């Protein structure tokens, strides 16, 4: 059975929010939109975002890390938001495991946002219905978009390629390999929600400088004895001083 999911590399994310804005741009005009903004130009603006980045510090100076933590619906395999829904509006798709809300059935009772331990739900103040990350279901199942673009908008936007997308039930998929080989972990496993989305941990970066890196034993001028070719039209602009 397919279970589509995101795998987010916390070692790479720099908190640029490109995933946040690209998510809103696609989804406000997509099947789940519009994503409403309250007081967009006034005091205390607040709006619907399916994806947010929380930034926090860990440790004490100078042993500090600043962690940028993208948060969206984790598309749990056992989603607590589904059984609490009195109308059946909150559901998990059988064919690909995406958790969605049927706006036509939703009565805005917010039981699901109380049930979700991850705070992933976003109440739409205009339509009075619950909304959430759709994993860009209207992109990933599209038959008209070019094949490489059938990915969530956030994945396509990430300049650091910190976001992977795929089927976590396929052991050979890129996301499954990343989880297996790079220590991917789910959030709050003690809730037994079995989140489909996983995070890849921060890694300690170490640089080892070898002596041969400092003194080039293979200096090409000593090996082939050839000098670089001279400029063809006199001195170059970058180099005329020498």
């Amino acid at each position: 059975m397919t279970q589509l999911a995101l795998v987010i590399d916390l070692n790479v994310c720099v908190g640029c929010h490109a995933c946040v804005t690209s998510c809103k741009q696609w989804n406000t005009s997509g099947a789940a939109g519009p994503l409403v903004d309250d007081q967009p130009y006034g005091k205390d603006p607040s709006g619907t975002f399916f994806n947010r980045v929380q930034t926090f510090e860990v440790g004490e100076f100078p042993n500090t890390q600043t962690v940028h933590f993208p948060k969206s619906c984790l598309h749990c395999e056992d989603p607590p938001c589904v059984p609490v829904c009195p109308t059946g509006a909150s559901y998990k798709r059988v064919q690909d495991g995406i958790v969605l809300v049927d706006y036509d059935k939703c009565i805005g009772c917010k039981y699901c946002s109380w049930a979700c331990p991850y705070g992933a739900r976003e109440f739409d103040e205009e339509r009075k219905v619950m909304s959430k990350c759709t994993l860009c279901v209207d992109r990933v199942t599209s038959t008209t978009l070019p094949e490489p673009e059938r990915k969530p908008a956030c994945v396509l936007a990430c300049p650091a390629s910190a976001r992977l997308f795929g089927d976590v039930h396929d052991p050979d998929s890129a996301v499954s390999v990343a989880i297996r080989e790079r220590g991917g972990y789910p959030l709050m496993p003690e809730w037994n929600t079995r989140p489909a989305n996983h995070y890849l941990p921060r890694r300690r970066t170490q640089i080892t400088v070898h002596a041969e890196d400092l003194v080039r034993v293979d200096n090409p001028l000593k090996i082939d004895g050839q000098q670089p070719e001279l400029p063809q039209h006199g001195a170059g602009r970058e180099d005329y001083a020498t």
Partner: protein
Amino acid sequence: MRNWNDGYMRWAQGAGLRRDRDPIVIHLYSEFLQRFRLAAQGKHKGKQPPDRLRQRVQTYFDPLPFYYAPLEEQATDTTRYPLNAVTQRPMAMYHSWDSQNAWLRQIHTYNFLMVNRRTALAEGIADGAWMWVESPWGKVRCQCRHSEAVEPGTVWTWNAIGKAAGAWSLAPDANESRQGFLLNHLIREELPLQAARAAPPSPTATPSPARPAWYDVRVRIYPAQADEPGASWPQAAQPMQPVPGMAAAPERRGWMAGLGLGCKKVTR
């Protein structure tokens, strides 16, 4: 030839990016700077620096990199102003000045001065408290955010968040103007040259290249008094007025491509 990227050199010349197909050598020793210095030393014919700047050019146009305390710092009492103040642009707004954008301003609605926790507590400034940051040129009231990710001798904030009341067509009580702030008030555009007081002021730029020396300002911090208003300072005397003919801002909005505004406009 193995020391340079011959393929790139051929392509770059063919594509017109470079005139010549010669190796690109990074100049650690800069002959360009040395020519300025030779001129200042009177050893180079042609254009000469003004006499009052000869010594400065001779010193700082060194053809080799060297460290010196920033010129503004040399002219500042660093005992009274012990901290460096720097800014950086919010990544979410990079390559964009449109921080009044309805989505971007939700990501950074206002800014804090990020101060190392120990530095802030030494001055009696609590996390989230109102405080003053003062340079020899001006002062700003802002909110403090304790941080472990900033060096104790440096304070920083996001730039371009703070706005005058009513600016950018935001509401007069928008967070950007009531809680946001700019460090611009702490920064002088001109360098106080002690040795050349009679001379025209010099731009606050490092000798080469002409990088605006925003990172050279020195500041001190102290808590705001309990009876001070909980708002950033300075504040505009009057909120900026809307441009005539400009539509009122909506109180709620939802974009849907092809349909424009998904919600009706509500006049404030």
